């Protein structure tokens, strides 16, 4: 780095501030390992073990983003993957990744993060004007405003899309990182490594199960890592966790996956996991992928995902400085961060009292505001004993501040919290820890179609019955108490092991000491603020999608009574967090507005992914050249050395044309096409599908498969065949040769080879299992060089072929085995050009040798290599169709004018009955014709539509489309084939082809045969 750059960088990078909110000691951070990172251009310090969120809070940075719709200032709400506000963009350049939750981003040296959804800066944001105009952005705003007039939608859409994006993808598009996919099987997959998950995994592993334990965090333990008031078997939570993890790690059949999110649960216990392998490393080793996608098939699954704490819905509850109470406790105990000094704990349940005690211990001033009137229990006593003031029957009615919480308004309220009973008072504060009760994380259970039931006591939905082979355990099962959750995990681990056919280990649950608390919250869903209904500062339900309590009420009043309609109308729960913190509050407020019970209203559908999964991990290594195989012929090397250009034909790379110095494509193709009819051309036809057919019923099988007759084909004879689907439509064509009494060699189109083989197998296995026929794909077994043109026989002779090529000895449509340069070959006298032509098949490995030998032998005879483009022109000159070009799955042999190939005597073949349907005889079916442009130099674009009257008002009456169109140097003009309605009746007439630019091409309808109509050139 040059000195000047360093100076410039210094302008934008202030000296790292002190971590003012860091506690003096404690937590699971490594204070001996300081780490520098950058957020929105400022440098900060944190420690190893921090998340970006905990490190920002340690530096007193609460404002971390702007909200989606109103651009309101938002802070860190939670401490886990449920975080709705703190979405950040991490990394730079091609490695930048948007919408990561700061609560899940592990801190490492040099971490670079930016806030999102703000312009030009986080503290001064122009989009926040939306907030000032908030009365113009009610629920259903887009539906109401932008649907009319329809012609303006394009304009609106442009504006909306610009405004609506959440996050910004990487500036450069080529992701430099590597991702992997891994498939795994296990007896028991445990999703979630908190107390219940750890205990379940331990019990299953001790019972001999192959266990995979996955947890989204960097270390196992879950909520327990944030608790300081629990002991397990006399040990600290961390000590007990370390012991369990060590025991699991020592068992070979246990796979421990930290930093791994189980994000999808599909049928038959198939689960998808994303493992973040190196995201937490400052300089990842080269051998590791960035992320790994695990696809796990589990015999049994244990879901121990834990629970999410709910916010309370009151005015101003989205201000930075308003956090979930459990998260505050986690920041204090796990990360050694005290996010405020003058604090208010606002709750409807006992659990937040533990946060009050933690804040008090950390030296903060605490006031507890409890919605409940009758306060009992040990935790309340402990809090009061600590000298903390507790207000019962009160609520925080309004929180206020500009970019951070500055004061709260507190008032006595009624039983449900919805009505302010008396004058409020105000208090200055810088942190509000709120708790609205817990909601089990039932996402995976629901993805797997497990059923939920409403728990009237715990005020949450929890799993009732499972659909897959799975068990729920711990807080995710509605068992919030640590002691009971461990027991629940133990039970689930044993049950899963038993269901997997194992003998359950005799394990006892550890002894727990934890605060004795009630887990029952008070039902208080929408806190009153002293204003009229829908008035006063906004109270948010869904923080990420900016859905307020009034929006839910408005939707209900406007008739959106189904929760699925409410969701779409207000976008409640439709953000990237899928409403982890908002769903239950939204449902409860809707139920209240509708005067119904919550279980009557029901939940919306949970869908994968649980948290966003990166597309890179899903794609894995299947990108770039590894996305799809590229198939090369054995002569590919020669084509490349001789300057061929290539085209993709299915997976194959085929030589397209061979331009010489200064030649345009048209020049090269003209030269190749002329040579094939004046001297000789050679084509690499190795890609043609080839199927070896054997068995005593092989001829009978072909007779049923093709439209023409095959029983009497002589050995060594070739025949062209057309294959139909049972609906009478052409599906493939090719030449099949009888090699022996019970042995045939079939060729198919290049693109159709695999499909034709499957098709034949299907009929043999499902309809005619009595036929003894065996099919083998031999496409790759043979290299094929096609010699075509007047000099073809002379070249073969010069190449030293050891058989007579006289037409009498080797007639058209027959096959001879021979040798060229001592190598055995099969030579087929078939022709796709109308010229004297030989398809020489040789064992694949000799393909290049054959090709170079023929090129050498042909030099004196003007042998010219031609590619697929010339092949197309040559066959079009003869009116030969290409299946998939002239046909599109709605074309019969009759439509192609190929009645001659449809047997009138065979009792049945695939498609026969369908061809007899009345609709097949309709005169306005599209039929194959040739087109001859009046202006002979004018080549019609393929796909052009033909009309009879070019002056007709639009939309014109379409006759059909041009399927093939070329310049033919042999004709000296343009040639085309088209599928036109009633085409044969139009023969000799004129059609018009209107072009996009208003120009009209005029063409005569002719027979689709432009060259050598009598076929006189076939014998050279």
């Amino acid at each position, binding site marked *: 780095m040059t000195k000047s750059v360093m100076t410039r960088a210094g302008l934008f990078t202030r000296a790292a501030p002190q971590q003012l909110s860091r506690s003096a000691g404690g937590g699971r951070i490594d204070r001996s390992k300081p780490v520098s990172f950058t957020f929105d251009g400022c440098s900060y310090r944190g420690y190893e073990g921090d998340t970006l969120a905990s490190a920002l809070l340690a530096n007193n940075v609460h404002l971390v983003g702007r909200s989606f719709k109103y651009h309101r200032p938002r802070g860190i709400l939670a401490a886990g993957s449920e975080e709705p506000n703190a979405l950040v963009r991490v990394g730079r350049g091609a490695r930048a990744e948007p919408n990561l939750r700061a609560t899940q981003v592990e801190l490492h040296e040099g971490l670079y993060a930016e806030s999102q959804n703000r312009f030009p800066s986080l503290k001064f944001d122009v989009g926040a004007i939306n907030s000032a105009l908030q009365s113009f952005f009610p629920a259903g705003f887009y539906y109401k405003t932008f649907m009319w007039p329809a012609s303006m939608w394009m304009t609106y859409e442009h504006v909306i899309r610009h405004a609506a994006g959440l996050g910004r993808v990487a500036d450069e598009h080529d992701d430099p990182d590597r991702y992997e996919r891994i498939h795994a099987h296990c007896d028991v997959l445990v999703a979630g490594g908190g107390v219940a998950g750890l205990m379940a995994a331990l019990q299953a592993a001790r019972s001999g199960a192959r266990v995979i334990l996955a947890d989204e965090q960097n270390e196992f333990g879950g909520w327990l890592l944030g608790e300081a008031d629990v002991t397990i078997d006399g040990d600290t939570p961390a000590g007990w966790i370390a012991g369990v993890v060590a025991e699991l790690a020592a068992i070979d059949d246990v796979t421990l996956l930290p930093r791994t999110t189980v994000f999808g649960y599909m*049928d*038959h216990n*198939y689960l998808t996991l994303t493992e973040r392998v190196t995201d937490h490393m400052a300089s990842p080793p080269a051998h590791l992928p960035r992320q790994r996608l695990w696809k796990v098939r589990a015999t049994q699954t244990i879901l121990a995902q834990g629970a999410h704490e709910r916010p309370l819905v009151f005015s101003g509850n989205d201000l930075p400085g308003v956090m979930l109470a459990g998260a505050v406790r986690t920041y204090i105990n796990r990360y050694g961060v005290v996010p405020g000094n003058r604090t208010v704990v606002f709750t409807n349940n006992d659990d937040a009292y533990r946060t009050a005690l933690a804040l008090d211990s950390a030296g903060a001033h605490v006031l507890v505001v409890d919605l409940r009137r009758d306060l009992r229990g040990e935790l309340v006593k402990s809090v009061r004993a600590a000298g903390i003031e507790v207000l019962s029957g009160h609520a925080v009615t309004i929180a206020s501040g500009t970019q951070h919480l500055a004061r709260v308004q507190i008032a006595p309220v009624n039983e449900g919290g919805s009505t302010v009973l008396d004058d409020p008072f105000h208090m200055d504060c810088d942190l509000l820890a709120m708790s609205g009760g817990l909601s089990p994380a039932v996402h995976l259970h629901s993805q797997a179609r497990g059923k939920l039931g409403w728990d009237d006591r715990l005020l949450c939905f929890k799993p009732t019955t499972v659909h897959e082979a799975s068990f729920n355990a711990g807080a995710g099962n509605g068992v919030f108490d640590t002691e009971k959750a461990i027991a629940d995990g133990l039970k689930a681990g044993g049950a899963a092991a038993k269901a997997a056919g194992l003998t359950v280990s005799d394990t006892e649950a550890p002894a727990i000491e934890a605060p004795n608390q009630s887990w029952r919250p008070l039902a208080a869903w929408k806190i009153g603020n002293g204003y009229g209904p829908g008035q006063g500062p906004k109270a948010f339900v869904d923080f990420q999608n900016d859905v307020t309590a009034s929006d839910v009420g408005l939707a209900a009043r406007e008739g959106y009574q189904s929760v699925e309609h409410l969701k779409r109308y207000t976008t409640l729960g439709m953000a990237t967090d899928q409403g982890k913190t908002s769903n239950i509050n939204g449902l409860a407020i809707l139920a209240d507005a509708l005067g119904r019970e919550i279980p009557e209203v029901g939940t919306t559908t949970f869908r994968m992914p649980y948290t966003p999964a990166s597309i890179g991990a899903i794609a894995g290594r299947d990108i770039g050249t590894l996305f799809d195989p590229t198939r090369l012929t054995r002569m590919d090397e020669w084509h490349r050395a001789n300057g061929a250009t290539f085209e993709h034909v299915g997976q194959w790379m085929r030589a397209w044309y061979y331009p010489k110095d200064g030649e345009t494509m048209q020049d090269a193709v003209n030269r190749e096409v002329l040579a094939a009819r004046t001297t000789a051309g050679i084509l690499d036809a190795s890609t043609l599908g080839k199927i070896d057919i054997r068995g005593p019923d092989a001829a009978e099988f072909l007779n049923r498969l093709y439209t023409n007759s095959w029983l009497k084909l002589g050995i060594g004879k070739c025949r062209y065949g057309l294959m139909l689907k049972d609906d009478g439509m052409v599906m493939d064509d090719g030449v099949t040769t009888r090699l022996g009494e019970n042995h045939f060699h079939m060729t198919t189109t290049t693109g159709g080879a695999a499909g034709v083989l499957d098709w034949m197998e299907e009929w043999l*296995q*499902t309809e005619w*299992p009595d036929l003894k026929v065996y099919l083998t794909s031999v496409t790759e077994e043979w290299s094929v060089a096609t010699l075509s043109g007047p000099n073809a026989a002379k070249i073969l002779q010069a190449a030293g072929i050891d058989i007579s090529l006289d037409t009498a000895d080797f007639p058209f449509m027959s096959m001879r085995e021979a040798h060229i340069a001592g190598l055995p070959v099969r030579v087929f006298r078939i022709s796709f050009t109308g010229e004297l032509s030989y398809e020489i098949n040789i064992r694949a490995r000799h393909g290049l040798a054959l090709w170079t030998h023929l090129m050498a032998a042909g030099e004196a005879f003007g042998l010219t290599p031609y590619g697929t483009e010339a092949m197309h022109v040559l066959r079009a000159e003869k009116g030969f169709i290409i299946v998939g070009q002239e046909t599109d799955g709605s074309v019969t042999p009759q439509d192609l004018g190929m009645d001659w190939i449809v047997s009138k005597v065979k*009792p049945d073949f695939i498609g026969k*009955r369908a061809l*007899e*349907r009345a609709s097949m005889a309709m005169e306005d079916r599209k039929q194959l014709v040739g087109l001859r442009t009046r202006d002979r130099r004018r080549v019609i674009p393929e796909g052009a539509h033909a009309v009879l009257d070019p002056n007709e008002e639009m939309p014109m009456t379409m006759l059909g489309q041009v399927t093939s169109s070329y310049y033919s140097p042999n004709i000296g003009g343009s040639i085309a084939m088209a599928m036109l309605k009633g085409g044969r009746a139009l023969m000799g007439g004129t059609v018009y082809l209107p072009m996009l630019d208003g120009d009209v091409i005029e063409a005569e309808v002719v027979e689709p045969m432009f060259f050598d109509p009598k076929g006189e050139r076939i014998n050279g």
Partner: protein
Amino acid sequence: MLLITCPHCGPRDESEFSCGGEAHIARPLAENNLTDAEFADYLFLRDNPKGLFLERWRHAAGCRRWFNMARDTVTHEIVEIYPMGSGPASQAGKAAHAASWRRDTAAEAAAKPAPKARAKKEQVS
């Protein structure tokens, strides 16, 4: 992602298989005197029941063999897998076979093999 037990290879992921649609559609021969509408029953109409469905599947990325499968389209439970040319053995499978509207079509009647051959070929009763 279903877990399908190929009768030849064992349990494999659904992604290795391809579904061939409704099973037990007898193919009428061209010489059967079916009206176009009756023939269309065979050619175009496929059942799509809510509940147990008898389907044809192929182990496309494995042994390439076809087999029949009785799958519940709601729960995705695979009730049974049985060979081509035979009928379902389970009670539920037999009931689903008998309940299909197709059993009463002219196309089906025309395509049915003679009673003797049928007894040998199909085990549905």
